[in-house]
């Protein structure tokens, strides 16, 4: 499960560029579709500002923030 720290996110879309399953949408803000996410962790690794974190054991939907 991936969560976004809205304060740190600069809306640069680097995470969107590497997501293999198109689970990240940058619209007015960044949202992650936890139904699509396969938990590969690529987005969290490349986010230049470290705004994404992998969180274990969250209930479904908690990553939509």
């Amino acid at each position, binding site marked *: 499960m991936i969560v976004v720290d809205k304060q740190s996110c*600069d809306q*640069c*879309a*680097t995470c969107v*560029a590497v997501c293999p399953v198109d689970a990240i949408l940058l619209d007015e803000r960044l949202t992650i579709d936890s139904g699509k996410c396969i938990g590969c962790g690529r987005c*969290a*690794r490349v986010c230049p500002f470290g705004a*994404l974190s992998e969180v274990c054991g969250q209930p479904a939907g908690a990553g939509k923030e």
Partner: protein
Amino acid sequence: MAARQFDIAVIGGGPCGIVAATYAAGGGRKVCLIDRKPSPGHPVRCGEAIGLKGFASTVELKPEWIQSKISYMKLVSPSGITVTVPNSYEGYVVDRERMEKDLTTDAVARGAEFIADTSIVSVSSRNGDGYECRSRDSVIHAQCVILAEGVESRLARNLGWSTSLSLRDIHSCAFARIAHDGVEPGTCVFYLGVKRAPGGYVWVFHRGGNTANVGLGVLGESCQKGMPRTLLEDFIREKFPGARVSDLHCGGVPMGRWIRPLVRGGVMLAGDAAHMMNCVSGAGIAYALYSGKIAGTVAAQSFVNGKCRPEMLGSYQDQWASFYGKQQDRSHAIKEVMVGFPDVFLDDVARSATKNCARKMSILSIFVKAFYKRPLLLLKVVRLLR
């Protein structure tokens, strides 16, 4: 929701999309240029360096965009050996926000409609009758779509392209503007080495007065959470202590091969969205301007009796492939080898360059000397360049 009708919809109002819209509208079509941002060019996620050649045959460089003329290139090796060479081609650091604002004004003057503050969430085919582009609260129908959405290249995935970048093919970047008396006028400085920027480099580009754009890129494979920002802050603290820092932003640079095919049906991919990039220097503005120009021109020419003929869009890829496309293929091959360069090798290159007086030597002969000690690496390069 009533759909608005256009001949050509350009999605993404960066340098690529703006120029595409200008040429498409100049070709007599009804064109819209859509961007998520409220106004063009802001925030800037770029070092803003471009050679005069990069403007050639696309847009005219306006003197008021120029922030600094680049006279020197400086390379600092991992152990600190410095090689300075006079810049062999005419290059500038430009005010990209101003440039994009002016270019957008030109696009509108040519007849394109600029739709700001609108994020397109999906693009779909209307079964033979063009395409539907949807945002949260609007719908646009167009016969032909130019996707110039930058590195995220997400809408392209709606239409069958696979544009997700592998971690070997992306630089994760952080960047800022600084004001400090240590900034060297008229100079672009590159710092190499695994400690400063694994798989990438740090750059400092003079931007007029005592200011500079400072940034760094880390290869996706070597990146860890938040690394680019931390390394950038460390670098500025070390080299420019007490500097005034503003406009801290981040971004991604595609460093792979350009996407093939560039056209599917009535949709064209251009600029960063098509992963068009000089993979050694990380320069993409010139490629974005050029691909935008040919995409916009070819799109306008593909209309016969008011209908887009998709089979006529193919010449876009041919034109791209025979010019910058070829150049990118070479730069990509070189990048693939450079990723494996150990720091000691880069130090060797720098050492032989200083010993042999870089002014009189070409960059190529410097590399040949350094490769002399590592024939296996040379073989690898030759194989890739063939």
